[in-house]
């Protein structure tokens, strides 16, 4: 039975929060490995090879970014960053360094577990075929035919431009994952992001939302995180 559980390495120096998060995860049937410092986390990571890492950025011995670099040197293990910082710049830095997602403290159990599920599922897809099986993507009435480059919502086709389609496809391939502006721009237009390219992306997203009939505040397919990027809702 134990073998069938996902192993999650939890790196957090506050013991109260560590216990709490461990309880949340264990209640959801995950196996947890706990670390309080960066160096401890490194050795635990190499000996257990967890399926997912939850990482607090403010650690006593060194910055959590350090561990991010350490793991990303040779593994794609999903990493969720826990951060008390509400500063967008920190979130973006962590995401661009290879973190899959972030959760801002304080957070509820539901929020954290949803991110964990999304990150695990994402890792599964991207390590197997790179995209959802048989070239199709389906989610709550949204359907994407990757081979024909066509998009349907509740059976009805949505006419998208080249760029719009590319963005939708990219977000769907990374469904549930927070994609920073820089990451999307790099994937869609190539090269480094320049002055004005974020705006270009925002304009395209506005058009996509309009075509999908998304309304502000409703349960939409696309979630925007102000100043950070976009995510396809799972």
């Amino acid at each position, binding site marked *: 039975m134990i073998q069938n559980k996902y192993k999650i390495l939890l790196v957090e120096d506050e013991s109260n929060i560590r216990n709490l998060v461990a309880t949340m995860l264990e209640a959801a049937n995950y196996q947890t490995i706990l670390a309080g410092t960066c160096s401890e986390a490194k050795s635990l990571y190499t000996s257990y090879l967890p399926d997912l890492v939850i990482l607090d950025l403010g650690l006593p011995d060194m910055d959590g970014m350090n561990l991010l670099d350490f793991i990303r040197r040779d593994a794609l293990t999903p990493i969720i960053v826990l951060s008390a910082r509400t500063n967008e710049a920190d979130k973006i830095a962590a995401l661009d360094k290879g973190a899959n997602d972030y959760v801002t403290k304080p957070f509820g159990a539901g929020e954290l577990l949803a991110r964990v599920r999304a990150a695990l599922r994402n890792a599964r897809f991207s390590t197997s075929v790179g995209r959802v099986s048989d070239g199709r993507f389906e989610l709550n009435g949204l359907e994407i035919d990757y081979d024909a480059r066509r998009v349907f919502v509740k059976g009805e086709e949505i006419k998208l431009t080249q760029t719009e389609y590319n963005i939708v496809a990219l977000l769907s391939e990374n469904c549930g994952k927070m994609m920073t502006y820089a990451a999307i721009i790099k994937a869609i237009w190539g090269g480094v992001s320049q002055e004005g390219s974020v705006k270009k992306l925002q304009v395209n997203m506005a058009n996509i939302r309009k075509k999908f009939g998304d309304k502000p*505040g409703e349960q939409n397919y696309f979630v*925007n995180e102000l100043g950070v990027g976009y995510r396809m809702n799972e």
Partner: protein
Amino acid sequence: MNKLNKYIRDGAITVGSLLGAFALSLMFQYIFDVREHVTTIFVFAVFLVSVLTDGYLFGVAAAFIGTVAVNYAFTFPFFSVNFMIPGNLISGIVMIAVAVLTGALTTKLKRHEATKAESERERMRANLLRAVSHDLRTPLTTIYGSSTTLLENGSVLTEDQRLRIITGIKEDSEWLVRMVENLLSVTRIDSGQVKIMKTPTVLEELIDSVIVKFRKRYPTQKIEIELPDEMIIIPMDAMPIEQVIVNILENAVQHAVGMTRLKLKVYESGQNAVFEISDDGCGIEPKRLETIFTGYNSSADEVADSQKKNAGIGLSVCATIIKAHGGNIEAQNLRTGGAVFRFVLETEEMQDDTE
């Protein structure tokens, strides 16, 4: 740069006033053939320069120029400088005295105003701090009390009681989170070192994010939303602005008794985007309306614990944030009942995005 501009402005005032005095004197002399008032006109010009410019420099300079001009052009012997005549000497001394005294007076006045503004800010900060310590303690009491109850007597409580206590903990900690967010924004802005970081933000995305946050807290409260059709980009620090809108919406939910409609409308007015949040509740007491954005001072005559979730902090935070954006915020009662909060931010021209 700024200083240079000021010097140019002050210099222009000086030259303008003196030229005006000169022209007026010439007019009196040639048209009416009177010359007794020349000195008075120049004294007045010197006075004006001293009042309108900063410091003593320009006032005293104007006094010297005025003295020489009067001496040269308008007093006997005409068109020659002669300080030996006692009358000329006296008018010169009078002008310089006027310039120095007026300069001293206005400088003092300006300094006084600066200290007054500073003490006003100080007072607001003290008010805020007092309010905060009260508002933080109340939910903490619930959280602390509830958790110790659960720890010590958890087993004897019924499932229902336990649920009620835990819900209380959750609600009060949510309230604390919001409070801390508000305080963070205020200190961030108030500290003066960290400036507002404006980035171009898409209006639709902002509203989406606001509504998602609001729904999390009040899942059953309906909001009518009205946005312009075209894409609007507003340079702003998105997080605090988001907080402003959430604070106002939340304020309506908590204080607008009898509210059936809550509406969030954004429209363009020239170069500005106008945000309007209106409800059809009980409106705002006229007495409260005056101080609604200035902080917590009205709480003195209220019973301390009558409103745990007082609007004081939330709304003064809103005002601070909007002012830091160079915008303007106001609250009004609607003639049809209910209240409306309105704030204005400058939009960005759409240009370089059609490649």
